[in-house]
């Protein structure tokens, strides 16, 4: 397999960045990893995962949709879309890589969301196999192998080198473009490292989490469960879980009056918010119980019902780490599980 020594990775970054924007996880001042546009001096982070998920690349927090100019009774509609330039994301973990497909199901199904598609088509995703999973990881519950993250190019480290393997045509093109820096390498150490990681994955505290009690056919019984009241009672109704989630895909469309025109933009929205479903005449989800239930039912029942049984969660563990009151999908699943 083709490889590059870890200490030489900056050379590869420099080569890639000559032609396209390159984003890599890098530690910020608080010691947390964030995707950062590579330039001389930006260092690749060894952190397990980034604070915010990689969905931002394809589904950013806010994005302008269309502009309007108003004059008297007339409206001018201005299409502001532009072709995105090619870019590369390096170091995407298996969970985030899977989340792209969960978003694809929604945004690339008819009618295709051209804003999303534009960015998705111009991106090359280079994944990175996990070697040090955390206690909050539970991707295996959703059939994800953290040592085989997929993407256009799959990358893994044996501690001294990064190994590259193309998974798609786009990936092949990427490897060709950097082949001058790569050399053939023996994968014995890599296989060893992966085997070790798998051992740890099996020992993780959430390794036993099961999805068997969930899915499209459990809709009515799960919806009517009496556990929701207790689970949702301390929920603050903030959007932290939604906004750090790599698979949450709901959005709001809003207009902003700039004083010389109207900008219509969309931004992330959360089903945890009280005005998410509020209409002039009332609200079908009146209390936090219904809103809380919606979020987890969507991930565990509604999404699989619409997309061939695929769950709308990838087990990245961000909500476990970030919820202000430590209520999360794992606790919900454990509480609702039928043993």
């Amino acid at each position, binding site marked *: 397999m083709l490889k590059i020594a870890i200490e030489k990775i900056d050379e590869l970054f420099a080569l890639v960045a000559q032609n396209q924007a390159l984003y890599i996880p890098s530690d910020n001042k608080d010691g947390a990893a964030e995707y950062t546009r590579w330039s001389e001096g930006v260092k690749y982070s060894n952190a397990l995962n980034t604070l915010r998920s990689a969905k931002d690349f394809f589904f950013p927090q806010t994005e302008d949709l269309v502009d309007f100019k108003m004059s008297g009774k007339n409206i001018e509609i201005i299409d502001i879309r532009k072709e995105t330039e090619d870019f590369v994301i390096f170091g995407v973990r298996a969970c985030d890589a899977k989340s792209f497909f969960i978003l694809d199901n929604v945004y690339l199904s008819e009618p295709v969301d051209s804003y999303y598609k534009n960015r998705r088509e111009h991106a090359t995703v280079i994944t990175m196999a996990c070697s040090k999973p955390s206690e909050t990881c539970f991707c295996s519950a959703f059939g994800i192998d953290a040592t085989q993250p997929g993407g256009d190019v799959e990358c893994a480290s044996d501690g001294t080198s990064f190994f590259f393997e193309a998974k798609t045509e786009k990936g092949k093109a990427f490897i060709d473009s950097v082949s001058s820096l790569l050399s053939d390498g023996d994968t014995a150490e890599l296989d060893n490292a992966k085997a070790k990681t798998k051992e740890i994955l099996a020992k993780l505290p959430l390794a036993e989490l099961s999805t068997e009690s969930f899915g499209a056919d459990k809709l009515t019984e799960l919806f009517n469960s009496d556990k929701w009241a207790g689970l949702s009672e301390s929920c603050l109704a903030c959007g932290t879980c939604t906004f750090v989630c790599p698979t949450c895909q709901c959005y709001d469309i809003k207009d*902003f009056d*700039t*004083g*010389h025109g109207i*900008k219509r933009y969309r931004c992330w929205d959360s089903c945890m918010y009280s005005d998410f479903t509020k209409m002039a005449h009332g609200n079908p989800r009146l209390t936090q119980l219904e809103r809380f239930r919606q979020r987890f039912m969507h991930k565990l029942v509604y999404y699989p019902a619409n997309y061939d049984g695929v769950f709308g969660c990838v087990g990245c563990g961000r909500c476990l780490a970030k919820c202000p009151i430590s209520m999360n999908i794992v606790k919900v699943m454990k509480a609702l599980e039928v043993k």
Partner: protein
Amino acid sequence: MQVNENKDFEPVIVAFCCNWCSYAGADLSGTNRLNYPANVKIIRVPCSCRVNPMFILRAFQKGADGVILCGCHPGDCHYTSGNYYARRRMTLLFSMLDFLGIERDRTRVEWVSAAEGAKFAATMNEFVESVKKLGPNRRLEDLRCRKQ
């Protein structure tokens, strides 16, 4: 301090004026034919304490380069104590804006009575000059509202 970006820069100033004193003061400066720059936009409010901190921020968002609040002199409030409350609020707000690195000369409170037409015009001229020196508002600007 910011360097003047453009020599011909004419700052947009929003002046919140209380109905009972400062607005009448502005009126008087007009009837006395005292000059103050045309780009001072006056917004009449029932009392200086009607001005919510949000009004100040929104004025900056929508393109103001400086915001000034004018009310009755302390002790003269039509509603007895409104301007005392406004005074505390604005002190804290301006201090916070300063804390966030927004130039302190972009905000100001001045007490102008109905008889002080001359003071109103002088205050505005002075304020416009000081904002002019700062250049356009960039630190508390909404880029979407910038005129291309």
